[in-house]
């Protein structure tokens, strides 16, 4: 059993598990942090961004000034943003049988894999995962395609040139594998390969293994996966949450008794408590708006935004913000808000029960109804007519490199009355803000990451007790910025096995058993004999038939009739020769009684010696040795077959035959 690790990002995993002749890809995350090295794509022509000076080497060589621009001491690539793909060279991806998706954030690299690697398998995911994943992809494609950029920079990627660049460009990894965004056509094609599954549904893969998605509590439709055969169980935990937010709670009990637990997607901000952060978010939002400022919340179109809107729903009246407009701007805003209301079966119990009232599970429906929350596909069109300040705007993309957020950063960045509040934990907010410096607007960082923290992981591991834990190397040491926090790492026994990008891990357990079925007629013919109380044995003579990873014992064919009429045997008739069966023996030989029996049968001068493994009975007269051990008995006599057979029969009297 092997694990191929294709992604170095612990929350955007992409691993391949080879297990019992199947090749299973676990998640297909796309590392988008690479886009932070690029200049933002403004929706409206930005003189500031256009006029940034080109970057030149220390010696004044300016051959890169078309590709690289300098802004407040940072250097950015002036090109269409590119993403860091999972490793494609480690294993032939066309051999992947299935891809299991755990949540919509972890499927963003799917089109790269399904469309460009010769992949012919099936992708499994839950319905909300697919629908919301589609929205995220659609939004991404839309954000990038609507700001066409003629230039595609590639010179800087040259290894010799990259070395000369300032950080962080100099340290960017695998730049040669960075790719531009996929197209909508590729998205559609990739999504067509997905087969929908429900929680606890058992899916057979070639009869060899069974995979089952379990609720992971993190997002709508998010799942952990159980991959098991009859005697082995691997759990894949990715992006799980124990907090009470909108999704169905995490199913922990089904993870018990795993041989291996692959643990990814823990919280990215282990020191931040989501409740405190929501409080911080609300307080800062209220303070800004009360002072006449605007609030910008860069976010994904689905996920935490539902919880934030729910908090605000309860908060705005108490904070006297009822008259403040809330805008949600995304090409998929409408679909996201509506989808959230129709996936009732994937929601937590509280929200599910609302559906029966019937009421919309999320209160943002009421915000929309009362015109407190308005949503628009983009800043163009209706939005510009309705736009009223001070206001609160939720829009993407959280990297601040593309999407409508770029426009608001340019628009509001100059006033200290305004505030940008970062709630998504995927991007470093300082790096995200770098191309907008100098910036007058206030920046508040309250990352809300509901995924498991290390205390919860430690409790979870105690509860489910896997034999082995496998996790990204980042989880086996404290975060670099807090190297003294020994509590911010996975602490379990035996210590977890860690992996990093482009590593292959041999998982530490051996398969010892295989299940074989016995055909009823064969089973009928068996005659078990009790050899010990509670233990019966029967001999089986059968043909082992193996097909689709299923093994069946079938009755042996009858002994072949003499085929006098036919001259030649066909290959398919070539049945194995059934040898005459010798009976099997069991039991142990009590030495004292055996010696008495020997004496009774006329042997004399018998000597018994104790050895480490048993006894040696010495028939001195006959110059014969009988070696009795726990699992074997040898009669050693030179050239006296008669004697040997006599002795053998005496030995056999003490043993059971069947």
């Amino acid at each position, binding site marked *: 059993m092997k694990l191929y690790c294709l992604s170095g990002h612990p929350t955007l995993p992409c691993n391949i598990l080879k297990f019992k002749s199947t090749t299973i890809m676990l998640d297909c995350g796309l590392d988008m942090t690479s886009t932070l090295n690029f200049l933002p794509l403004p929706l409206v022509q930005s003189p500031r961004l256009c006029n940034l000076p080109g970057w030149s080497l220390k010696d004044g060589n300016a051959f890169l000034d078309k590709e690289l621009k300098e802004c407040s001491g940072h250097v950015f690539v002036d090109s269409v943003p590119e993403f860091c793909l999972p490793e494609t060279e480690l294993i032939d991806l066309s051999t992947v049988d299935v891809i299991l998706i755990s949540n919509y954030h972890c499927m963003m690299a799917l089109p790269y894999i399904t469309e460009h690697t010769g992949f012919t398998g099936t992708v499994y995911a839950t319905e909300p995962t697919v629908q919301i994943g589609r929205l995220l992809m659609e939004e991404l494609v839309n954000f990038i395609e609507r700001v066409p950029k003629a230039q595609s920079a590639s010179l800087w990627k040259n290894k010799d040139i990259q070395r000369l660049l300032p950080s962080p460009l100099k340290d960017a990894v695998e730049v040669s594998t960075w790719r531009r965004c996929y197209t909508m056509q590729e998205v559609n094609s990739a999504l067509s390969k997905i087969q929908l599954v429900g929680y606890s549904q058992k899916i057979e893969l070639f009869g060899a293994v069974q995979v089952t998605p379990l609720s992971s509590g993190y997002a709508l439709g998010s799942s952990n996966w159980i991959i098991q055969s009859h005697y082995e169980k691997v759990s894949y935990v990715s992006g799980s949450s124990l907090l009470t937010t909108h999704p169905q709670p995490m199913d922990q009990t089904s993870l018990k008794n795993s041989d291996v637990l692959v643990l990814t997607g823990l919280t990215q901000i282990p020191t931040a408590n989501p409740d*405190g952060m929501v*409080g911080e978010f*609300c*307080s*800062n939002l209220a303070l800004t708006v009360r002072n006449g400022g605007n609030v910008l919340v860069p976010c994904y179109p689905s996920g935490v935004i539902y919880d934030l809107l729910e*908090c605000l729903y309860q908060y705005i009246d*108490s904070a*006297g913000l009822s008259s403040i407009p809330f805008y949600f701007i995304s090409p998929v805003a409408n679909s996201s808000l509506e989808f959230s209301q129709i996936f009732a079966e994937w929601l937590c119990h509280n929200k599910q029960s609302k559906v029966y009232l019937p009421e919309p599970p999320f209160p943002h429906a009421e915000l929309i109804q009362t015109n407190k929350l308005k949503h628009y596909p983009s800043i163009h069109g209706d939005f510009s007519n309705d736009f009223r300040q001070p206001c609160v705007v939720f829009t993407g993309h959280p990297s601040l490199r593309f999407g409508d957020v770029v426009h608001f950063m340019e628009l509001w960045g100059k006033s200290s009355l305004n505030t940008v509040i970062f709630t998504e934990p995927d991007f470093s907010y300082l790096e995200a803000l770098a191309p907008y410096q100098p910036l007058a607007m206030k920046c508040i960082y309250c990352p809300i990451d509901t995924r498991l923290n290390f205390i919860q992981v430690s409790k979870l591991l105690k509860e489910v007790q896997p034999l082995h834990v496998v996790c990204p190397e980042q989880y086996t040491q404290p975060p670099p910025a807090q190297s003294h926090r*020994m509590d911010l790492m996975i602490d379990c026994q035996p210590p977890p096995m860690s992996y990093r990008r482009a590593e292959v891990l041999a998982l530490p357990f051996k398969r010892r058993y295989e299940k074989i079925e016995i055909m009823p007629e064969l089973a009928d013919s068996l005659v078990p004999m009790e050899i010990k109380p509670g233990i019966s044995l029967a001999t089986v003579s059968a043909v082992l038939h193996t097909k689709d990873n299923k093994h069946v014992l079938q009755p042996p064919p009858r002994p072949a009739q003499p085929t006098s009429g036919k001259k030649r045997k066909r290959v398919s008739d070539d049945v194995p020769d059934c040898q005459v069966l010798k009976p099997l023996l069991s039991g142990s030989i009590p030495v004292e009684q055996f010696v008495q029996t020997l004496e009774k049968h006329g042997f004399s001068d018998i000597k018994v010696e104790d050895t480490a493994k048993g006894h040696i009975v010495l028939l001195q007269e006959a110059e014969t040795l009988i070696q009795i051990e726990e699992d074997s008995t040898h009669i050693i006599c030179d050239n006296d077959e008669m004697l040997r057979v006599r002795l053998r029969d005496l030995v056999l009297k003490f043993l059971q035959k069947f």
Partner: protein
Amino acid sequence: MDPECARLLPALCAVLADPSQAVADDTCLEKLLDWFKTVTEAGSSLLLLQENPCLVDLLTHVLDLKPQNVSPRVLSFSLCLAGTFAAQEDCFEYLQQGQLLLGLFGEAGPLSWAAWSVPIVRSGWIRGLRSLAQHPSALHFLGDSGAVDALFSLQGDSSLFVASAASQLLVHILALSMQGKAAGSSSLQGSAWPACAQKIVDHVEACLCSTAAPQVTQALNVLTTTFGRCHNPWTEVLWGQLGPLVAHLLENEPIPAAHSLVDLLLSVARSPVFASADCGLWETTARMLSCLSPSQAGPLALGTLKLQNCPQALRSQAFGVLLQPLVCILRATAQAPGPPGVLDETTEGSSMTVDTLLSSKSACVGLLCQTLAHLEELQPLPQRPLHWPQTLLVEAAVIILKLCEGSVAPSSSEGGRLCGALAGCVRVQRAALDFLGTLSQGATSQELMLQVFAVLLETLESPASSPTVLKKAFQATLRWLLDSSLPPSSLDLGLPAPLFLKELFPVLQKRLCSPCWEVRDSALEFLTHLTACWGGEADFREVLLASEVPKLTWQLLRDPESYVRASAVTAMGRLSSQGLQAASESSGHLEVQQGLVGELLHILSVDSEGFPRRAVARVFTEWLRDSHADVARDTEWFVATVLPMVSRDLDWEVRAQGLELVQVFLAQTLGQSSPHCPYVVTLPKASPPSPLPEVLRTLCQLQVFDFAFRALFDCDRPVAQKACDLLLFLKDKTAPCSGLQEPGESSDVTSVEATLQRWQAGEQGQPLSTLEPKEVLAALRSMDLEGLQSRLAESSDHVEKSPQSLLQDVLATVAVLEENVADCY
């Protein structure tokens, strides 16, 4: 016993004796026991039994019933009752004649019945014996009946109450049997102990030598109670005999029953018998301090430090034990821990403390919380060590808070592990903030004070701080701000408080906007207290008015949470008293134009919750008392507007507060009733009180009397009491006027009195015609306000408490139960 009760008693006994009639609950039986206790304390029990033979019949009947037929409750009751009667020696003899006591408490009695498995029976048996054990005859009885042996085994009873009662009874028997023995200790040596006492001491001695921890604990508990209760010379002999055995326990590893051992040592040390003698006690304590685990040694150290007569060396050692965890924290985080003198004693045994702190998160949290609580308790006591290491303690509290915040990055591995254990730990944070708050009174260097303010600000600012932590942080901040004896006007001196204020207000603003109502509430309370103390300081006013705080506070008057509205009302009341709501008035909100008074009146009249309305009533009273500008402009209008609202309020506290407001108003218009202190210097009044008839007319117009008379018959006693006091005050003040009235009552007065009588009868809906001063005076004169005052002073349940009603209740309950049974069929 009054005849009515004596009449009911046979019926009661019959009910109790009848196994088919279940008594509803234990409380009435307990009340019955209390009553019998008072009766027997007041007179002869023997006489009582002779006059009421049904009582002995009840006891006999309980014994005669088949054991399985007796209800455990009644059996327990009977045991207690028998004990209560037998407390008097003559009655004891009387009961003994019929072998009743032996039947109840002897080995053949309930002790051997199946009902013994019910804890309440065992408890009743012990309580009965406890009441009975009052005289020498009882001692003989206890010795002969085998009760003491039974008590030994009951010490390990599964019910903690029973076990504890058994242990206490043993102590009582020991003390009783030693009663009257020669005071000189020499005469008690050797075999001079009375048999019963000797038996108990032997048992304790055997238990102390036992290897089983529960036995040792039992022995230690008996001794702890003995030394805690008995302060006779024989206890010194007892300690002389058992002290070495106790000291011997310390040689075991681990030390058995460490908590009980600590209790015992402290109990012995507190006994006045040992005030002068040493008896090896201090030596044992010192040994124990050094060998117990840090969490076990903490309570002993605190107890030792609280003692008056303990040697200095031991005090130093004990204080060292208390300080040790904090010193370890400071060392692990590489802080220079205080002056060297303090730490010399603490180095010993610190490895054990470090081990505890690092062993697990829960051990670390437990030890730190305990240490902080102990030091907090010690801080204000006169016994606290003279050399109080203020700097070390403040530094430790600061560093602990930083560890909890995760804002300190220690280089050592111990520091790293501490950081992991304490990061985000709310329990330790709360304990440290409480402790830091109490340290505000000591002298602290300016540099350290800056650190304190910095860590408090960090806690207040941190998004991770929970509401309870924030509340404590606000409280600690307030104490440091007010106790640091730095008026905010000392800005030019560069002292921390005013600078801190500038940083504090943005945080306060944020907290006032918190989505969590507890946080908004704590922030408002903090603002109220701070304004009350510093409202007059120019720098404070400047910072406050420059911030959004007054505006936000105003907005919180409409908060959805009633507690927050109440706190906002109080805060706005305070801000307004200090003239600090100015900033909000310029904000252009509609409410502002109406003025704060209007807003508060709105809350008073329409708020559905009591808390905000109470707060408004309190603020209005304060304003009236302090002559707030908005009120002083037209006091009569103010009173006339407020009174109708408060008088009709459903919340009694609002009505009581309304009466308080009237009282303030009367004091201002009529002058104080009488000076609280005859020597008090009274300021010359700005305007002399108006003439009485005029005042009376005004009061009538303002409907003060209507309110007061109604309140007099209020269903809530505090309101009625207050109204009564108020009317008495008025009666007192109007006495000179009443002489002017014609004798004889006019018809109007009669109608007023008739209305009042109806009100008294509960018909409060009856309107009162507009009152005239003369009717009021007549009503005041004719009413027995003094009598009413004394009646109101009695507790409200005095009627229902009588024994007669108790007996009736018990009988009635049984009757009801019977009815219910009949219904079932």
